[in-house]
C-alpha cells in the first residue's frame, strides 16, 4: 500500500506544471475568456506532453500509465484552468483516431442528461454520445445545436443540443459506456481537486498581501479558518481521487463505483466551496471580472454537472450502505 507520489510521478507533475505556468498565464486566461475558441496549437502541445495518451498502452503508441497518473495530470490541468473537452478527448484516445495525438478534439454528451448541452462544440471535431446501450460517435458538424451567447464559464462555450442525434457509428458496448462514465467521474474529480487547489493558492497569496486595519488580512482568524477549511476539503478530496483511480485500475482494492462516487462528491464540494472561499477572501476585488477568482468558481460549477452530480453519486453510495 502506498499513497505517496513516486519520483516519476513528481517529475511528471513538475514538467506539466512548468509548461502550464508558461502557457496559461493569468493574462492568457483573461484573453481566452473573451475569445474562447480553442487554439489547436495548445491542444497539440498537451498531446505532445502525452496528456491524452497517458493510459493508452505503449504498444498502441501511448504511455501505458495508470489512471492515478492521469489523475495527477488532470489535477494540474484543473489547477491551471486549462480549457477544452479534456476528459472526453482523453477517454476517446483509442476508439477515436487522432484523440491521443491532438489531431481530434472530442466532446461528449451523456444521453441520460435531461438537457443535452455540448461543450466546445465549435472547436470539436467529434462528439461521443454516451448511452446506456453503448458509445456512439458523430462528426461534430452532425450535431444541431444552438451556441449560448454568454456561457457561465467564460472559457467553456456551451451549445444546447436541439435535436438529439439519431444513430452514429457505434464505437463501444454498454460496458464501455459504463467504463467511460466511471473513468470520466474520476478524472473530472481530479480536475475539480486542481480547481480547488488553484483557488486556494490564489486566495492564500492575496490573504498574505492585502492589508486592512494595519495588518495583512491573513492574520485575521476568520480569514485563516476559511482558508484552512478549504485546505481540508482539498486534501480529503485528493486522497479520495487517488484511491478511486487506483481502485478503478485494480478492482480487488475495493469497489470502483463507490470509490469514484465518493471522489466526485468530495471533489465537487472542494472545488465549489473553494471557489466561493477565493471570491470571499478577495472582497470586492473578488467580484470583478479582472481577478481570476470567478473563473475557478465557474469552472467548478460547470464540472459539478459533468459525469454525475454529487447528489446522484451520494444516493448511489447510500444504496451500498
Amino acid at each position, binding site marked *: *500500500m*502506498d*499513497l*505517496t*507520489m*513516486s519520483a516519476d*510521478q513528481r517529475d511528471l507533475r513538475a514538467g506539466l506544471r512548468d509548461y502550464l505556468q508558461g502557457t496559461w498565464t493569468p493574462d492568457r486566461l483573461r484573453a481566452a475568456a473573451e475569445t474562447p475558441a480553442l487554439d489547436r496549437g495548445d491542444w497539440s502541445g498537451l498531446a505532445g506532453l502525452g496528456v491524452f495518451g497517458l493510459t493508452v498502452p505503449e504498444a498502441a503508441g501511448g504511455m501505458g500509465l495508470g489512471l*492515478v497518473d492521469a489523475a495527477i495530470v488532470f489535477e494540474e490541468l484543473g489547477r491551471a484552468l486549462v480549457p477544452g473537452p479534456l476528459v472526453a478527448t482523453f477517454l476517446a484516445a483509442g476508439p477515436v483516431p487522432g484523440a491521443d495525438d491532438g489531431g481530434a478534439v472530442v466532446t461528449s454528451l451523456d444521453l441520460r442528461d435531461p438537457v443535452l448541452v455540448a461543450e466546445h462544440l465549435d472547436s470539436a471535431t467529434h462528439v461521443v454520445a454516451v448511452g446506456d446501450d453503448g458509445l456512439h460517435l458523430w462528426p461534430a458538424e452532425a450535431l444541431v445545436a444552438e451556441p449560448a451567447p454568454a456561457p457561465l464559464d467564460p472559457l467553456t462555450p456551451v451549445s444546447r443540443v436541439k435535436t438529439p442525434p439519431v444513430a452514429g457509428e457505434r464505437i463501444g458496448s454498454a460496458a464501455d459506456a459504463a467504463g467511460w462514465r466511471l473513468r470520466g467521474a474520476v478524472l473530472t474529480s481530479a480536475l475539480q481537486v486542481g480547481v480547488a487547489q488553484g483557488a486556494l493558492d490564489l486566495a*492564500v497569496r492575496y*490573504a*498574505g498581501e492585502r492589508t486592512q486595519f494595519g*495588518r*495583512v488580512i*491573513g*492574520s485575521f*482568524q476568520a*480569514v*485563516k*479558518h476559511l*482558508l*484552512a*477549511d478549504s*485546505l*481540508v476539503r482539498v*486534501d*480529503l*478530496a485528493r*486522497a*479520495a481521487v*487517488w*484511491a478511486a483511480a*487506483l*481502485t478503478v485500475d*485494480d478492482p*480487488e*482494492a*475495493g469497489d470502483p463505483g*463507490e*470509490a469514484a*462516487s*465518493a*471522489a466526485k*462528491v*468530495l471533489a465537487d464540494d472542494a472545488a465549489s466551496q473553494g471557489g466561493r472561499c477565493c471570491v470571499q477572501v478577495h472582497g470586492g476585488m473578488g467580484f470583478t471580472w479582472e481577478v481570476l477568482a470567478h473563473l475557478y468558481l465557474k469552472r467548478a460549477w460547470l464540472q459539478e454537472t459533468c459525469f454525475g452530480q*454529487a*447528489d446522484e*453519486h*451520494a*444516493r*448511489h*453510495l*447510500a*444504496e*451500498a*450502505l
Partner: protein
Amino acid sequence: MDLRLSDRELAFRDRLRAWLADVLPTLPPPPDRDDWPARRRYDTAWQRLLFEAGYAGVDWPAEHGGLGASPTEQLIFLEETARARAPYVGANFVGLLHAGPTLIVEGTDEQRARHLPRILRGEEVWCQGFSEPDAGSDLASLRTGAVRDGDHYVVNGRKVWTSHAEVADYCELLVRTDPGAPRHQGITWLILPMDTPGVQVRPLRTVVGSSEFSELVLDDVRVPVANRVGAENDGWRVAMVTFSFERGTAFIGDVIESRNILAELAAVARATPGRDGGTLWDDAALRRDAGRLAAEVTGLWALIQKNVSEASAGMIPVQGASVFKLRFTENRQRIADLAAHVLGRAALAMGDPAGGRVVEDRVNTLSFTIAAGTSQIQKNILAERALGLPKEPRWT
C-alpha cells in the same frame, strides 16, 4: 502508488484475524460505564491477552518490547481489531500511546525498565495531567508549581479533565519549575505515582452522565527528582514529543465505527415505516445526506492510507493529521445527528435498546472537536504551518 498489501502484510493480517476469531468469543461482557475498577480490569485483561499473543505495543520498537510493526501493519492492526469489535485500548490509552513512547525517546534506562514492561503487560495504568483550569488550548500557561527540596520536587496546583485518573497508577505531569523564565522554558515533565500523599482525585460528571475524567488536586505532593523525564525546564519539548504520538493513529478504529453507524442508520431507515407509506429510506434527501457522509468516510479512509504511506516513507504527516482530525470529528458528529433524526423519538434515552447507542454516541462525540486540540486550534495550525499565514498572537 497502489492499495495492495504485501505478502508479509497479508500474512500479518490473516494471523491476527485468526487470533481475534479465537479469542474474542471468550471475553466476558464489557462492564458498566461507571464501574471504573471493572473497566480497568477489563481493559488491562485485554492488554494482557494482546501481550501474551505478541500483539502488545504494535507501534513500539522491538528493543523496548514492542512489535516494531511498520506503519501499514499498525494500520492493519487497528483496522482488524475495530472490524472485529475487539475491546478498545481504553484505560491503557495514555500508557501505550503517550507515556510509554515518551519514555522510550526521553526516559532514563531505569525509568524504561521500571515502566515499559508493565505497560505492555497491562499491569500499569497511566493518566495525563497536562490541562489545568486556566491552561487548556494555551497549555504553556500552566501554573501547577514544583519547587525543589533536596532530591524531591514539592508540587502544588490543580489539573483538570484527567481521563482515567480514578484508576491510574501513574500520571504524566507537566509542572512549572521556573516561574521567572519565559513560558515555554520553565516547564518540567514528571512521573507522578498516583498513590503519593497529597494527590486527590475528584471525578467530574461529563455530559454523558458518567465520569470519564477527573480533577486532580495536588497539595504538597513530593515527587522524587529521579522521576523527572528530560532535563529540568525542558518539559515543553518533552511534551511536544508526547503530542507527536497523540496525533497519529488515535481515531482509525473510530472511522470504521462511523461506517458501522451509517450502515445501521440505513438498516433502521429501511425498516421504519414512513408517514406517507413506504419506509423512511424512500426519502431521497435522507439517502443523499447519508451518501454524502459515506463519501466523507471513504475519503477519510483514503486519507488515513495516505498518512500511513507518508509515515512509512519517513515523513511526518503533520498536515495530514490535522486535516484528518478536523474532518473526522465533524463527520462523526453529523453522522450521529442524522442517525438521531432517523430514530426520532426513539433517540430520547441513553439506555434504550433501539436508539441508546446512537444517543450516547451523539452526546459523547461532542468531545471529539474539543479534546486533543480543538477544531479551532487545528485550523490555526493548518493556516500557519501548511498555508504559511501569520502566527496567532501568543506570549513569548
